[in-house]
């Protein structure tokens, strides 16, 4: 087999050196009762060509050549060619976690750059080397707030991505952490500050809001911060559309910013792998989960980078660790780093402006349901058809319509969530508008 670099004669030599006559003897010490007495019921190995063919066939059974108006936490953005060029280098792709700093400066340096760029983007003081994704970053941020404040309760906006809220509940339930939701205003789509104020108390560790929220609305971060801070809670701000930070004022009032970087050259890939981040103020550094890369010097006085503050992590702290996380998303974070480098200061802004323009062109043709300001997504209620009817009609034109919201918000069952990015063509928006009449 082409991945196994031993010839039969080499195996023979090694078996002799081990003092056994056959490979089976290497397993002779295993109790008979545990031995698998038959071959695995899996087909024999196939050639490269056949493997490619298998996956091409599967890919053909998915959507191909459709225009899409789906957003809802996963966004269609162009992936600059250089991203795959860089991450395909064997030195990045096939390297290990950079525990041995002397031979991992490539990875460590790029992570340090990543941490810096996330700070610049979010306005926070420190960022970690990535979380699994945006959805798991939410409970991690909540637990962080609980550690920092010594309090145990969490208030979360209903306009936070529904699946993110589900993940939060799964974690919170087992931490004995009560989670309560506060609503949004039916007219603007922004958070209901009065509802938040009503539900707020001094036992709350964190108030969690998303901006732009699940409906695409730029939300009331400053006002939420005031309510949270007045009662000694931290404000956690989540983002799912990273491109929005190219144009939107970062949430400076937040104590913790967490979110998803999939928009930065990470393929949608049917749900993963993605990369989440957590960024925070200086004073909460030691409460942060996940890997951190720090700057130092080596024995010869050169600038060098290394993993640091590892005593927060599982391999040292064990049951008292800030999290159980071990793997981060290094290669995915590298994709985002290359993306941020390529677009840069001007480019990310221009990209965001294009997204704004596209979505606002569409909203001129398909009326938004909410009056709040939005970035590249908005909720629309189509008078003439139900969301399912609309999407069925659109599929005939090879268009995947927006997400019908009924599955997550029963009160919005007559509406869809439409997203337009720099990749959305005017002609497709015109076509969608036509079908939606």
């Amino acid at each position, binding site marked *: 087999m082409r*991945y196994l670099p031993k010839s039969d004669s080499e195996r023979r030599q*090694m*078996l002799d*050196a081990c003092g056994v006559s056959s490979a089976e003897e290497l*397993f002779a010490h295993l*109790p008979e*009762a545990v031995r*698998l007495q038959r071959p*695995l019921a899996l*087909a024999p190995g196939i050639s*490269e060509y056949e493997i*490619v063919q298998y996956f*091409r066939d599967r890919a053909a059974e*998915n*959507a191909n050549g459709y225009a*899409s108006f789906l957003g809802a*936490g996963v966004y269609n953005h162009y992936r600059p060619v250089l991203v795959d060029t860089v991450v395909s280098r064997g*030195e990045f792709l096939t390297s290990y*976690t950079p525990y041995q700093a002397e031979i991992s*400066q490539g*990875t460590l*340096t790029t992570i*340090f750059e990543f941490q*810096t760029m996330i700070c*610049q*983007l979010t306005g926070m003081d420190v960022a970690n080397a990535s979380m*699994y994704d945006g959805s798991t970053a939410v409970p991690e941020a909540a*637990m962080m707030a609980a550690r920092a404040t010594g309090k145990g309760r969490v208030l979360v906006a209903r306009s936070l991505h529904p699946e993110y809220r*589900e*993940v939060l509940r799964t974690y919170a339930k*087992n931490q004995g952490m009560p989670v309560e939701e506060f609503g949004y205003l039916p007219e603007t789509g922004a958070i209901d500050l009065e509802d938040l104020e009503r539900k707020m108390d001094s036992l709350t560790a964190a108030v969690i809001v998303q901006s732009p929220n699940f409906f695409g609305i730029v939300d009331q971060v400053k006002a939420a911060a005031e309510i949270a801070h007045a009662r000694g809670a931290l404000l956690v701000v989540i983002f799912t559309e990273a491109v929005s*930070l*190219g144009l939107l*004022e970062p949430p400076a009032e937040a104590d913790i910013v967490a979110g998803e970087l999939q928009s930065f050259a990470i*393929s949608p890939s*049917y749900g993963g*792998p993605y990369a989440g981040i957590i960024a925070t103020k200086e004073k909460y550094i030691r409460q942060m989960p996940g890997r951190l890369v*720090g*700057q*130092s010097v*080596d024995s010869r006085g*050169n600038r*060098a*980078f290394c993993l640091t503050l590892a005593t927060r992590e*599982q391999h040292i702290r*064990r049951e*008292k*660790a800030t999290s*159980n996380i071990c793997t981060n*998303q290094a*290669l995915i974070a590298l994709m985002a780093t290359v993306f*941020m480098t390529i677009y*840069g200061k001007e480019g990310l802004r221009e990209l965001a*402006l294009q997204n704004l323009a*596209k979505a606002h062109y569409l909203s001129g043709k398909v009326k938004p349901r909410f009056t709040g*300001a939005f*970035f590249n997504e908005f909720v629309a209620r189509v008078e003439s058809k139900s969301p399912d009817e609309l999407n069925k009609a659109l599929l005939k034109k090879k268009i995947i319509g927006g*997400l019908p919201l009924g599955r997550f918000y029963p009160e919005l069952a007559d509406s869809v969530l439409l997203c337009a990015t720099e990749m959305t063509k*005017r002609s497709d*928006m015109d076509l969608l508008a036509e079908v939606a009449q």
Partner: protein
Amino acid sequence: MIEKVTPHLSQNESLIFERSSPGKKAYQLPELDVPAVDPAEALGAANVRAEIEGFPEVSEVEAIRHFTRLSTWNYAIDHGMYPLGSCTMKYNPRINELVARIEGLAWAHPYQPEALAQGAMEVMARVEAALAEITGMDAVTLQPAAGAHGELTGILLIRAFLEAKRGNPRKKILIPDSAHGTNPATAAIAGYAVENIKSSETGVLDVAALEHLVDQDVAALMVTNPNTLGVFEENIVQAAEILHRKGAMLYMDGANMNALVGIARPGDFGVDVMHLNLHKTFSTPHGGGGPGAGPVAVKKILEPFLPTPRLRRAGKKWAFDYKRKHSIGRVKAFYGNFGVLVRALAYILAHGGPGLRNATVDAVLNAVYIRKQLEPYFDLPYTQANMHEVVFSDDRQAKLGVRTGDIAKRLIDYGFHPYTVSFPMIVHGALMIEPTETEGKQEIDQFVAAMISIAKEAESDPQLVKSAPHGTRIGRVDEVTAARKPVLRWKPA
């Protein structure tokens, strides 16, 4: 004579921010086909940011050179062996990268209509079936994003099951002192107290102690098999029996599955729930620290509690089942790290059933061979048969003032990545070595020769070893200052 360019060792690449200068661009967006919109008008002036201060500004050429130069500072599997114990640093087949990027798979949106995602769902179903067959378990969830995430999922499943069955999730999880740090960290996050169980004198599970320790408060034992010494837990069946008799469950950390695939199946020796590390056993690339995937495999009794949604067959098609009232809920948005699953499936298809078993045999052969070659030079505290990895201690060299960390650093000078240092904790000054099946005889013999040479250097010239590495661009990094005065981002001067 042609003068060659000096090797990268002498390159000094600065940070991207230090290379930036205003006005440089590496991108070009197409012209807008719709009217531009004034952001202040659309968003409200207060919501529009000024520039992103400090963000890079470089050209495409500078970008590619920057990352290329940085990459040459890394060691990688493509260069040579990583003898890291319990990490299973095997070859990352390039075909995996190709298939994961096929457009219909790479651009699939998790919310696209199920009728237009059948290919992706078929891939997931195929992976579930293959992993169930390999582990001897009944059902698999692909949702967890990594090993530790899978561990958490598994413990939450146990909690939900015990709660449903007897109204009592119990209070404690037993964890061997040889366990990986994620195990106790996971138990704590799942809301359980951790109780350590000491390994026996021979480094394996002490079933007499287990019989004594498992009481009404114990929900489960978390075990790694083979354990972190690379030794098969010969009493695993007995351990499972003890736990089950007392109403507790057996969780297996699948980090060491590379010793078992095709040879023995956890489902057959009493495991109720386990996780797999696709980025270890199934060759998906580590990429400098992730991504991974941590599928969880369970016995039938735990199936109703698996995360939502689950794949089910609806006539001739695949569908997601969201109506699962006993489910523990979601542990992650969407369905799992699909891109990683594609790579793992490509690996499984390439090897096939017989091939997977052969890989296991080669992995164990390599580790046993290394043990035999190095036994005369390094102290071996636990002497039973080892499988895919072997753990020495630095006792012999420590008498001369040379510790495992020093030997590891000196190994770098011989062109290898270090083995796992100082773990597991039950071995003093541990050297944990796992070659995987990827290494041929030449590479292994070179590794053995290097280790023997270092053992000799520890006697003849200990200072050489203690001050290693010598041949790298960067010497030992001052981790103490990095922790005392953390500098975690670049700032302009």
